[in-house]
C-alpha cells in the first residue's frame, strides 16, 4: 500500500465523482461513499509504516516526495475519517440541493488535498497541496449562496491568500539558502542557519499557520466561513481543515527547527513558544466570550473551534511530552466532537427548515432524541466533562501548564473552559430544552444516514473518554516521532509522579454513585410522567409554546462583558479592507479620461528621467 496510490485514489476519485454525477446521481453518491470508505481502509492499512519516497514528477528541478510516518498518519486518519462521515451525512442532508456533482467533487478534492499536505515529504508539494486546499475550500464555502456566505468566502480566501503568500516566501527563502525543500533534509540544514533567517522563516510560517488555525488575531475568517458553509462541510472545516495549521506548526517547530533552535531564538522571556502560547491563551478567552455572545448555532460552534485551537497551541507550545500529547490528543478529540456538533446543528437545520437562530428553537429533545444525545455528548466533550474524550486532553494540557509554571496560561485555559460551559449549555438548552414552539410540533427525527455519523462519533467520544489509552498510544507515537520522551501510557490513562489520572476509577465511582442514586430515586420515589408544559407557575398559567426563556439567556453577562469583547480585530481588518477600497477609489482617479493629461504623464516621466540624470546623474 503506497501513499502515491492513496493520493491517486483521492484525487482521481474526486474528479471521477464529478464525471459520474453527470451520468447518474445515484452512481455518484455510491461512488463518493465508496471512495471515502476505500481511503479510510487504505490509510488504516498504512498504520505504523514509516517511509519517504520521491515522486516520479519533479517540479522546476526540485524533487517532490511523499512520506508517511506517525505524524502524517495521525492527521491523515482524522482527515479521511471525518471525510467519510461527512460524505455519509451528506447523502441525505444535501439531497434535493443544487450542484451536487460540484459539491461532492469539491468535498472529495478538499479531502484529497488535505491528505496531500500531510503526506507531502517536501515543502513544495506541501505548499501546492496547501494552495489546492485553500482554493477548493473557497469554492465550497459560498456554495449556499447569499450575501453572507459570499462574504464569508471572500474573507476566507483573502486571509488564506495572505497566509499562503507568507508561506511561499518562507519556503523559497529556505530553498534559496539550502537548495533543498525536503523536510528531512531541511531539518539537518536549519540547525546551521543564522538566527535572523530562522526568525524570518519562523515568523512567516507562523503567520500562515496561525491564520489557517484561526488563532487570534487572525481568527476573523473562521466564524463566518464555518457558519455559512453547508453543515457537512462545516464539520470538515472545523474538524480537520483548520488543524492543518497545527500540522504545519508541528513540522515547523519540531520536525524542522527543532528544540535547540527554538531555544536559541528566545530573547529573554520573549521566546517563540511563549508568544505562541500567549496567542493561544488570548484566543481561548476571547473566543469563549465571543461564542457566548452568539445566537446562531453554527456560529457558536465556529467560535468554539477558534477557542479549542488555542488549547492545542497551548499544549504544543509548552513543548513537554505531556503538553504535546495533550495538544495532539486534543486535535483528535476536537475533530470528533466538533464534527458531531456540526452534524447535530445541521440535522436541526435540516429538520426545522434551515433555522439556526437559537432564540427561535427549543424543546426539540422529544422530537429529535438522537440529535439531543449527540449534541449533549458533543458539548460534554467540548467542555471536557470527565469521562468524555475532551477531558483527558484538556487535563493533560492543564497539567503540563501548571507543572511548567505557566499559571497565567493555565488561568486562560480554565477561564475558557468556563466560557465553554456557558455557551455549551446555551447550545443544548436553547435547542433541545425548554418549551417546544408550536411550529416544531411535527418535526421528525434525524434520517438514518444522518444519524449514523452522529452515533459513531458519540460512541467514539465515550470510548476515548473512558479508554483514553487507545488514542493516546497513537498520540504518544506521534510525540516520539517528533523527538519527545515517550509517555507511559496505559489503556486507562496516564500515570505520572504528580497527580495521576485514572479515568476508569472515575468511571467506576460515577457509575456506582449514579446507580445508587438512581436506585434510590426509583425505589423510594414515586413519580408520574407529566407533559413538558405542565409546570408550576404559582397558579398563573404559562402560555404554552410561547414562554421559552432563551432570548438574552446571558443578558446580564452581556451587559458586563459585551463592551469589551467586541471583535475589534475583525472590525480592524474590515476597516483596512475599507481603506484599501477607498485608496483604490482615489488611485484610479489618476486616469482622468482627458488625453492631454495622459500625454502629460508620458512627457513628465521622460522629463523626470532626464532631470534626475542631469541633476544628480545617478545612472
Amino acid at each position, binding site marked *: 500500500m503506497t501513499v502515491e496510490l492513496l493520493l491517486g485514489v483521492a484525487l482521481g476519485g474526486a474528479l471521477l465523482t464529478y464525471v459520474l454525477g453527470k451520468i447518474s446521481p445515484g452512481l455518484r453518491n455510491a461512488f463518493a461513499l465508496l471512495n471515502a470508505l476505500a481511503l479510510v481502509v487504505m490509510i488504516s492499512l498504512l498504520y505504523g509504516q514509516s517511509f519517504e519516497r520521491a515522486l516520479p514528477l519533479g517540479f*522546476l528541478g526540485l524533487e517532490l516526495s511523499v512520506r508517511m510516518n506517525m505524524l502524517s498518519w495521525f492527521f491523515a486518519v482524522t482527515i479521511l475519517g471525518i471525510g467519510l462521515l461527512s460524505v455519509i451525512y451528506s447523502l441525505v442532508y444535501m439531497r434535493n440541493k443544487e450542484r451536487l456533482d460540484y459539491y461532492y467533487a469539491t468535498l472529495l478534492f478538499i479531502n484529497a488535498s488535505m491528505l496531500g499536505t500531510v503526506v507531502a515529504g517536501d515543502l513544495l508539494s506541501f505548499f501546492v497541496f496547501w494552495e489546492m486546499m485553500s482554493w477548493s475550500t473557497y469554492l465550497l464555502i459560498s456554495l449556499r449562496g447569499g450575501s453572507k456566505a459570499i462574504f464569508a468566502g471572500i474573507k476566507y480566501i483573502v486571509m488564506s491568500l495572505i497566509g499562503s503568500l507568507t508561506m511561499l516566501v518562507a519556503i523559497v527563502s529556505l530553498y534559496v539558502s539550502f537548495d533543498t525543500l525536503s523536510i528531512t533534509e531541511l531539518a539537518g540544514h536549519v540547525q546551521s542557519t543564522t538566527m535572523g533567517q530562522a526568525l524570518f522563516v519562523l515568523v512567516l510560517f507562523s503567520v500562515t499557520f496561525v491564520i489557517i488555525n484561526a488563532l487570534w488575531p487572525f481568527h476573523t475568517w473562521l466564524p463566518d466561513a464555518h457558519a455559512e458553509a453547508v453543515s457537512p462541510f462545516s464539520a470538515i472545516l472545523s474538524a480537520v481543515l483548520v488543524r492543518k495549521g497545527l500540522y504545519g506548526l508541528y513540522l515547523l517547530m519540531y520536525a524542522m527547527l527543532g528544540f535547540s533552535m527554538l531555544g536559541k531564538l528566545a530573547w529573554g522571556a520573549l521566546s517563540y513558544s511563549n508568544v505562541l502560547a500567549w496567542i493561544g491563551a488570548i484566543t481561548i478567552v476571547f473566543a469563549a466570550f465571543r461564542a457566548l455572545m452568539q445566537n446562531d448555532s453554527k456560529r457558536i460552534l465556529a467560535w468554539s473551534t477558534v477557542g479549542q485551537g488555542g488549547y492545542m497551541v497551548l499544549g504544543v507550545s509548552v513543548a513537554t511530552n505531556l503538553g504535546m500529547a495533550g495538544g495532539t490528543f486534543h486535535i483528535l478529540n476536537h475533530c470528533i466532537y466538533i464534527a458531531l456538533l456540526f452534524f447535530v446543528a445541521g440535522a436541526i437545520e435540516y429538520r426545522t427548515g434551515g433555522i439556526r437562530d437559537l432564540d427561535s428553537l427549543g424543546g426539540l429533545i422529544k422530537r429529535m432524541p438522537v440529535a439531543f444525545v449527540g449534541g449533549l455528548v458533543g458539548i460534554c466533550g467540548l467542555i471536557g466533562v470527565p469521562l468524555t474524550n475532551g477531558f483527558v486532553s484538556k487535563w493533560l494540557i492543564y497539567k503540563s501548564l501548571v507543572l511548567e509554571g505557566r499559571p497565567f496560561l493555565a488561568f486562560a485555559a480554565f477561564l475558557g473552559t468556563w466560557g465553554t460551559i456557558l455557551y455549551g449549555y446555551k447550545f443544548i438548552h436553547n435547542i433541545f430544552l425548554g418549551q417546544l414552539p408550536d411550529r416544531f410540533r411535527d418535526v421528525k427525527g434525524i434520517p438514518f444516514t444522518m444519524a449514523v455519523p452522529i452515533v459513531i462519533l458519540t460512541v467514539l467520544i465515550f470510548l476515548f473518554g473512558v479508554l483514553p489509552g487507545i488514542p493516546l498510544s497513537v498520540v504518544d507515537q506521534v510525540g516520539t516521532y517528533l523527538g519527545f520522551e515517550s509517555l507511559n501510557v496505559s489503556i486507562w490513562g496516564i500515570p505520572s509522579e504528580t497527580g495521576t489520572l485514572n479515568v476508569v476509577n472515575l468511571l467506576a465511582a460515577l457509575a456506582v454513585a449514579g446507580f445508587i442514586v438512581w436506585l434510590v430515586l426509583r425505589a423510594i420515589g414515586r413519580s408520574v410522567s407529566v407533559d413538558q408544559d405542565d409546570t408550576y407557575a404559582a397558579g398563573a398559567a404559562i402560555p404554552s409554546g410561547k414562554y421559552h426563556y432563551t432570548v438574552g439567556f446571558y443578558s446580564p453577562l452581556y451587559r458586563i462583558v459585551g463592551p469589551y469583547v467586541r471583535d475589534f480585530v475583525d472590525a480592524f481588518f474590515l476597516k483596512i479592507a475599507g481603506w484599501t477600497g477607498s485608496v483604490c477609489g482615489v488611485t484610479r482617479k489618476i486616469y482622468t479620461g482627458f488625453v492631454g493629461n*495622459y500625454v502629460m*504623464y508620458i512627457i513628465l516621466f521622460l522629463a523626470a528621467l532626464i532631470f534626475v540624470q542631469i541633476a544628480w546623474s545617478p545612472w
Partner: protein
Amino acid sequence: MVSPVLLIAVPLGLAFLVPLISLVSRRAAMLVPVVACLFNLVVAITLMPGVLDQPVVEKIGGFPPPFCINLYAGPVGVLFAALIALAGLGIAVYAMAYIRTGPVDRYHLLYLLLLVGATGVVLTGDVFNLFVFFEILCISSYALVAYMGNKSGLEASVKYLIQGAVGSGLLLMGIGLLYGQFGTLNMADIANRMGSVNQVSVFVPLALIISGLGVEAAIFPLNAWLPDAHSSAPSSISAILSGIAIEVGLYAMVRMIFTVFGATSILMFMVFLGALTLLLGELCAFAQSNVKRMLAYSSIGQIGLILFALAMATSYSVAGGLFQLLSHTLSKALLFLAAGYMIYRSGSMEISSLHGMGKRMPLTSLAFTIGAFSLVGLPPFVGFPSKFLIVRAALARQQSIFTILLGFVLLGTLIEGAYFFRVVQAIYFKKGSGETGRSYAPAVALVSMFIFAALIIFVGIYPQPVADAVGSAATELLDRAEYVRSVLQ
C-alpha cells in the same frame, strides 16, 4: 533548414493574400490567421531545439550583419514567436465565432498583421526595424480597438493612438540620437560601440526609448491608454492586446536596456517602477465594477510584476519574469475570451451582470475561473511556477530592499486575488436576475478556451520544458557579450 524569417514572411504573404481571398469570400478570410499561426507555431517549435544550443542569425539580403538588417532568433525570440503563434492561434479560432459583424475580412487581416508586427519585434536585431514592426503592431491595434465602431471603442482608440504616436515619436527620436552617435542601427553593433561614447549622452536616448516603448509596454505612468483600449476593444482583441502586445512592448524595452544599452544602473529604478506599476494596477483593478476594465488594470499589474522580475536581472529573475509573461499571456487571454462570451450573453460588462453565469454558461465560467486562479498564482495552474520563480529570484538577491519590494509585490498579488475571487463568486454563487437557461458559447470558442485552459493546467503541473526554455532565454537576454559576438562574428 527552416529559416526564422519564415515566421515573418509567410504570415505577411498570407496577409497580403487576404484582400484577394476576400474578393472571393469574405468569411474565408477568417481562416487565414489560423493557418498562419499554425504555420508559425510549427516553425517556431521546429526551430526551438536548435536555437537553444546556438542562436540563428538570419542576415536579410545576405550582407554581413552591421550592414544588413538581421534577425536574431535566439531562445527569447523563438520562445516569443511560439507564444505569439500559440496565443494568436487560440484567439484566432475564438474570433472565428466571436467576430460576426462589420468588415470581417479586415478584422482578420489586421489581426494577422498585428501578430506579424509582434513577431517582427521579437525577432529583429535592428533598432529601426524594431521601430517599424512596432508601428505595425501599434497601428493595427489602434484600428482593431475601434473595430466595433461604438462610442467607447472609438474614444479608446483615439486616446490610444495619440499616446502611442507620441510614444513612437519619442522612440524614433531616441533611435535618431543613437544613430547620430554610433552611425549604425544594428543592435549588436550599437552594443559593441556603447563603451566608446560619453555615458551621459547615451542616457537621453535611453530615456527616450524607455518612455517610447514604455507607452506600449504599459508601465506606470505611461499606461493610461491601456484600461480604455483593453476594455473597449472586442474581447478577442483585448485578449491579444493583453496577452501579446504589451508583453512585446516590454520585451522590446528590456532588450534595449539589457542588450543594446547594457544599462545596469537603471535597473534598480525599473525594479521600483515595476513594483509601483503592479501596485497601482492592482489597486485600480480592485475598484472596478466593469469586468473588462478590471482585467485590463490587472494586465497593468501583471506587466509591473514581469518588469519587476526582469529588471532584477539575475538569471533566475529573468527566467521568472519570462515565465510569468507566458503565464500571463495564457491566463489573461483565457480570461478575456471567457469574459467575452459572458459579456456577450449578458449584454453588459458590469460584474453584477455576470451573476449566475456559473449556471448559464458552466464551461465558460470554468474557463474564467481557471484563468483567474492561474493569474493569482495558485497551483496547479501555470501562474504558480512563475510566481515561485519570481519569489525565488527576489529572495536570492539576499538584499533587504528586494525582500521589501517583494512584500509589496505580494501585496499586489493579494489585492489581485481579492478582486478575482470576488468575480468568481459573483459568477458562481450569486443569483442572476435575468435568464437562467443554459446558453453555451459556440463550440469553436469553447475549443479555443479549452486549448488555453489545458495549457494552463498542463504547464502548471509539468513546467519543466517551459522552465528550460525560459532559462536559456534568460541567459540569452543577460549575456550581452555573447549576443554581440554571435551577430558580429
